[in-house]
């Protein structure tokens, strides 16, 4: 019995030697299909002022507090965010009101006509969406250049870098009274939050299950016409874009009055839309 045991030990050692002498090689596969469409991809991000629990009602027919054209070059992996003032005069009407009358499909078509840019998809969020997405990300790291204090929006932020929870992020994007430029400054902060959140997502997502959870977080908090089959490839594309390769530009304009006497902004788009039409996306 003792001899048998010894033989087993020796055999085990020899097998071990054989195995250790035969090293293994690790080969990796990372397959992530790109979005089906080559070149330019355009999405209209719409922030509705209606939606439970803050303002019960149909968010698809609220007023558009935030309107941003996001253009992505899927080939170069660069992006541009164009902040469009909510009070922009479009066909003689205030842009924000058009969502109420038209709904997101026709609203997007009207913006596309106004900009002269094909818009592939729209994605609409509410106040609650912003809170839930930011909380789902574990907060978003932002840099605030000047102190913000506004009782109406609830903003109360010192200048400098800080991490915002969901309710704070909502206050950050709603404040137009203590930011430079008023409504233009608020619109810029919408774009800033998108860029900061994008950077946060890139840091949070390191594997396929996390990517799936992130897509689900956005799906729960967005109404969109993006096909479900495109969500994962689009999310993957977004992760491939370096934060430094995102350009944010704000349309400027002059204040005036529309046909009904409502205050509007007569937009001077400069070359913002021309660049997108020419495929010049990113910094």
């Amino acid at each position: 019995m003792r001899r048998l045991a010894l033989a087993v030990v020796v055999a085990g050692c020899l097998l071990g030697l054989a195995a250790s002498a035969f090293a293994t090689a690790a080969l990796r596969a990372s397959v992530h299909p790109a979005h089906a469409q080559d070149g330019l991809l355009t999405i209209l991000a719409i922030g509705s002022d209606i939606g439970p629990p803050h303002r019960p009602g149909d968010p698809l027919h609220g007023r558009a507090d935030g309107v941003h054209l996001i253009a992505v070059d899927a080939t170069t992996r660069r992006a541009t965010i164009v902040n469009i003032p909510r009070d922009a005069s479009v066909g003689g009407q205030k842009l924000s009101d058009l969502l109420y009358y038209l709904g997101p499909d026709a609203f997007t078509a009207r913006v596309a006509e106004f900009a002269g840019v094909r818009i592939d998809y729209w994605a609409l969020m509410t106040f609650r969406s912003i809170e839930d997405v930011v909380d789902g990300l574990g907060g978003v790291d932002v840099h605030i250049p000047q102190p913000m204090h506004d009782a109406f929006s609830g903003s109360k932020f010192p200048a400098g870098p800080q991490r915002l929870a969901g309710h704070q992020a909502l206050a950050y994007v709603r404040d137009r009274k203590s930011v430079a430029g008023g409504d233009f400054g608020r619109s810029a902060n919408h774009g800033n939050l998108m860029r900061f959140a994008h950077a946060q997502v890139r840091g949070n997502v390191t594997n396929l299950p996390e990517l799936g959870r992130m897509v689900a977080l956005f799906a729960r908090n967005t109404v969109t016409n993006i096909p479900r089959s495109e969500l994962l490839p689009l999310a993957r594309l977004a992760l491939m874009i370096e934060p430094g390769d995102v350009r944010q530009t704000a349309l400027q304009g002059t204040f005036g009055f529309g046909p009904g006497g409502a205050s509007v902004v007569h937009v001077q788009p400069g070359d913002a839309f021309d660049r997108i039409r020419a495929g010049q996306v990113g910094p």
Partner: protein
Amino acid sequence: MAVAACQAAPEASPGASDRGDGAGAPFDLTVEDIVIVGMDNAGILGVAGTPPSDAAAAAAVSAARDALGAFLNAQLVDEATRFSAAPVDQLLSARARATASENDRAGLGQVDLPVARTITGPASAVAEVLLHGEEVHAVTLSFNALLTVELAGGTASAAKQSGAMTFLPTEEGWRADAVEVTIELPEGAP
């Protein structure tokens, strides 16, 4: 939300040999946990939500597990197809096939290796299902499959395929649309 674990019934692998020592026996891929991740946006619309369907999730996981199990057996066990291109082509969606590089295919086990036989070990997975009511959007399986690979010459070595795959329901059936995996093989593989 977790659903009861399920286990794949091992299927006979066409062309596989049974030498009575485990060689050629198919993987018995077990799904140890199922996590449902909801995608219902009813909360922001203020309408009644659609509860996630455990039955739909279980059926989708079963289909994805079958697809992964079939791939592992075809790629690593079946003498007729192992380490060839066919199992990779069968696994991937059309757009993933178009994207996969030679290195990706090698990572999926499409390698030129003088294999005498393979002996399967434990294989298990955890599933995450993206679900809206009964509509399944995707199933991601994070898995480990252990085996022993014996090269021509008689030297055996432990090997492993592990990582994650996201399966989607496509016109071709359940196919892997995104893959992040590693295969550890005896040195000598390219």
